[in-house]
């Protein structure tokens, strides 16, 4: 009877309380958390692209069409799932090359972070010119399994 009571209380306490360790910021890999699917999609970028004409008009462009790459099955993953600022920069570079010299490419983009969406670009800069430095966003990098 005492053994049963001890086992029940001890195991029940461990089952219910041990996830608090990681919820409070602990990092021991030996204690499990239940933050299910917490970082899936973190780092993905949602972006729209447009070209500014010299006369001030703006024309939206489709990145698949502009790069002459398929949209559905067979599309490269770096194009369908824009990953981080590096992935966005890669696509902008290819679009600028495809649009030709003197193109004025504007981007509206946001990135998935652990705290929700964060704005990346409001279309203020010509992406075909050298870019101002962007601060690194640690919250836009998926945490490792036991971070």
């Amino acid at each position, binding site marked *: 009877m005492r053994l049963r009571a001890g086992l029940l209380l001890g195991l029940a306490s461990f089952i219910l309380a041990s996830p608090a360790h990681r919820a409070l910021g602990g990092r021991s890999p030996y204690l499990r958390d239940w933050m299910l699917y917490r970082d*899936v999609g973190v780092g993905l970028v949602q972006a729209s692209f447009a070209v500014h004409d010299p006369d001030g008009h703006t024309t939206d462009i489709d990145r698949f069409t502009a790069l002459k790459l398929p949209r559905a099955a067979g599309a490269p993953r770096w194009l369908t799932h824009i990953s981080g600022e590096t992935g966005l920069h890669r696509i902008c570079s290819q679009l600028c090359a495809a649009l030709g010299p003197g193109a004025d490419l504007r981007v509206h983009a946001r990135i998935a972070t652990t705290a929700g969406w964060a704005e990346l670009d409001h279309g203020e800069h010509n992406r075909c010119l050298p870019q101002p430095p962007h601060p690194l966003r640690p919250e836009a990098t998926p945490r490792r399994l036991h971070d």
Partner: protein
Amino acid sequence: MIDLLTREASTRSAALLRIAVVLLLWTRFAAELTLVATPSVPLSLAFFAATACLLVGLWTRLSAPATALVTLVLYFWFGVHRGHTAWIHHHHYLLVSAACICALTPCGRSFALDRLRRAGPERGPVWALRLYTLQLASVYLWSAQAKLSPAFLGGAQLEHIAMSLYFGSDPPTWPAYSVLTVAAAWLVTLLELALGLGFLLGKTPRWLLLAGVALHAALYLSLPVATFSATMICLYLAALDPDAVDRWTRGEPAPAPLSTASAPRTDPLDSRT
């Protein structure tokens, strides 16, 4: 507490859970523990020997703790300590936990070869079944706690998941999509809180269990959750009255209620006490 520790009831729930846990362990680990794929031949031999005996209910007092020990070695030694990270996800831990709790139940007294050697009433102490439901409560409550943030309740994290799995960087642009993700986020969080409190307090009415099954069915269809959904649904069995499950497995009608106030539980899907 005393009632819980001393109560004896049908062991059929524990036995069904024993069989389910082994089948889930095989579903998840067997292919990676065949001799051509295993990181350790002794581990594989111990895994298959222990779980095979447990499945058919042979020497369960030995095979159940052996299975628990093997799963602990799988998770903590090979997974955490030696860095085989493919074995240390949430669904693995849940299976390890279920295997450990199984070792504390009288799971060999029903649907088992052990009964051929030692016939007796299919009754035993069922206090350890409560640990299954506390494990369910822990999963739901801590999962809901992690969702209590503007990032999740505002729908952003569900949008991220949908982008990663379905839409890529081009999610739907129709306005209802945002409304849908916010509604889904609130629905999932509230349901997890209700399930967590229900299992914690031992009060899980039929509608709540069915809602939980629907939640896990939807998760299984839409996300790569491996054995997680199936394990959670199987563990719901521990929340049902063991004697009602017993009657159901025998195809016996439920006893007629003596009066409204003292009606015994007749519905195996209603664990209110």
